[in-house]
């Protein structure tokens, strides 16, 4: 894991003290809310429905037990005993007091964390593959490149006031576990003729105008990675629309300008920047890489798992993923208990996950954009002990990628932008399928719920998506089918008229039943939908 050097620490500590002064001046009335708002947002502090909300960055979703313990302590000391893991691998606290905010940032700084650039029109937290460094299918660990980009984008003066927020994801395998092409810039580290390079996908995103990013350059040499990213940002910063926030994201620019013309301008800017020498020394990337070397995996570990306990065997089947090292797996801790709140974890659960990471996973945890937690390097021989501890704490739900593993934004229960509640719908759907016993038969079914068009719940990318809308002051839910955030990326389509809260739960089950009736051998829900199209689903839903 990356460790701050003195420069990193100095930057973060200085920002804490700067914010402490800003908050003090706000509390003393020397700053108005209009003056203070952009300052607090630069430090991840929002004002939400019930209180201030603090969003803490977890770079590329990686953290160690010390950091997870610190997050738990913050939940206990300053919040109401829990935190919410988000769809961009961050954590949010919902009940923060302004008078505590600087102290929280100071506590975060002690464990090399911060909330910088988790809001505002800047480059946000860089996200990545939650199985990075463990996945058998990656060409290289993508996190050193994500870290390099994090350092480049932190406090970058030219990109602190972009037309809109800007999100970057970095992966290094053909299997996309980071919704890479639904980011403003998606980068895939690829191998060509024995050399590593970066494929750049630019102009993707969800929100009110979902778009899949086109590839604008299939192979940028890695010693030009930052320069190329800078060129992409420069063209956007120059032409992105600042007159209309709904048309200000780079996806609109690429779409309206055309990918070909946008690429031409990026290449011209890139050529110019190459002459300027903006790329950090390659030695810096080499320095960063040393922090991401493999842990000392043991050799000749047993590959067998005692599956005599059926509950444990089910969890192993559903919640563990193949690892590049023999005798190891990556284990997914579900934050989706039946009827629970997707992504929420209590302080006690966070402490436990931290301890388990220390004991069983080389002190590493990952936050998934699907709002679960990964222990990336677990010996198969330790799985039963791990599962037992998780199960005792309500963290042993065996539901990865099933219909019960629902992504849901905070929705109208917490978010001031939301039009409808997301969480109660997720709770009812997971309860429905846990009760009707169809979860196993349905297999992989990615269900994603957003409480408004901003799509924090990734509804466009759900095999089944749900979008909450406000229909004359009443919550209403649109059903979407056929989305994917993976390497087979696609955008879901709306089935037709929306449903009320009870109706949307029935509608999801109806759609699931169509799949169970129509599927052919080996087909996932998404495959069947793509083969038979929308019509059978609409007929079942609307008669």
């Amino acid at each position, binding site marked *: 894991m990356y460790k701050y050097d003195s420069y990193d620490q100095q930057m973060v500590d200085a920002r804490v003290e700067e914010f402490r002064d800003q908050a003090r001046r706000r509390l003393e009335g020397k700053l108005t809310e209009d003056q203070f708002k952009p300052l607090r947002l630069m430090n991840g502090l929002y*004002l939400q429905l*019930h*209180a201030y909300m603090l969003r803490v960055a977890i770079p590329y979703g990686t953290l160690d037990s010390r950091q997870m313990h610190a997050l738990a302590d913050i939940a206990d000391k300053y919040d109401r005993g829990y935190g919410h893991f988000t769809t961009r691998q961050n954590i949010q606290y919902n009940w923060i007091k*302004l008078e505590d905010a600087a102290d929280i940032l100071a506590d975060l700084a002690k464990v090399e964390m911060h909330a910088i650039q988790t809001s505002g029109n800047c480059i946000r937290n860089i996200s990545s593959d939650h199985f990075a460094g463990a996945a058998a299918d990656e060409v290289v660990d993508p996190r050193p490149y994500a870290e390099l980009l994090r350092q480049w984008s932190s406090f970058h003066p030219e990109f602190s006031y972009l037309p809109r927020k800007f999100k970057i994801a970095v992966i290094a395998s053909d299997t996309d576990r980071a919704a890479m092409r639904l980011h403003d810039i998606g980068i895939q580290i690829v191998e060509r003729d024995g050399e590593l390079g970066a494929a750049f996908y630019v102009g993707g995103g969800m929100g009110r105008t979902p778009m899949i990013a086109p590839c604008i350059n299939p192979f940028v040499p890695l010693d030009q990675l930052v320069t190329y990213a800078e060129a992409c940002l420069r063209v956007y910063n120059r032409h992105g629309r600042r007159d209309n926030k709904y048309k200000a994201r780079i996806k609109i620019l690429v779409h309206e300008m055309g990918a070909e013309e946008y690429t031409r301008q990026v290449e011209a800017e890139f050529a110019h920047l190459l002459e300027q020498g903006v790329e950090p020394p390659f030695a810096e990337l080499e320095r960063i890489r040393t922090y991401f070397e493999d842990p000392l995996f043991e050799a000749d570990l047993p590959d067998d798992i005692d599956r005599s306990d059926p509950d444990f065997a089910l969890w192993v089947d559903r919640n563990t993923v193949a690892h590049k090292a023999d005798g190891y797996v990556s284990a997914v801790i579900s934050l989706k208990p039946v009827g629970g*709140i997707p992504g929420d974890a209590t302080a006690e659960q966070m402490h436990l996950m931290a301890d388990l990471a220390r004991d069983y996973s080389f002190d590493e945890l990952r936050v998934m954009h699907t709002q679960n937690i990964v222990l990336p390097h677990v010996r198969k021989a330790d799985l039963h002990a791990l599962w037992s501890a998780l199960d005792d704490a309500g963290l042993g739900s065996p539901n990865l990628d099933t219909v019960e593993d629902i992504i849901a934004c905070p929705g109208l229960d917490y978010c001031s932008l939301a039009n409808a*509640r997301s969480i109660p719908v997720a709770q009812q759907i997971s309860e429905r399928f846990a009760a009707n016993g169809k979860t196993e038969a349905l297999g992989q079914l990615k269900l994603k719920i957003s409480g408004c068009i901003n799509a924090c719940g990734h509804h466009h990318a759900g095999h089944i998506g749900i979008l909450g809308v406000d229909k004359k*002051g009443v919550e209403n839910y649109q059903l979407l089918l056929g989305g994917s955030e993976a390497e087979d990326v696609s955008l879901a389509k709306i089935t037709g008229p929306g449903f009320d809260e009870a109706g949307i739960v029935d509608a999801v089950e109806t759609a699931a039943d169509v799949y169970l009736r129509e599927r052919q051998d080996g087909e996932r829900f998404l495959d069947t939908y793509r083969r038979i199209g929308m019509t059978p689903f609409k007929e079942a839903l609307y008669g």
Partner: protein
Amino acid sequence: MRILTGNDLKTGAVTWWTGSDWSLHVEDAVDVTGSEDEIARREESARRVNAPYAIDATMDEGSPRPSHIKDRVRAIGPTVRPDLTLKPADPDIGNWVI
């Protein structure tokens, strides 16, 4: 009727204008029709409230009930965490919100 709401500057807690002060409880809110802008300006400049705004409400069993669900959620707390609402012991509070 129109009632005035905002957030406490220090804590961020949702508050309601009572006619003389700010309360955590929406049932204390009073009708401010016609004077909402003046009160909001005065109270915000005195730092007794943050980002105040007026909303529509109706009287419901003697107490104001915000017309829009978003403000009813604000008034009580998250429907999915009744233990964190202002009325954790009221089993029917969800019906009031929805």
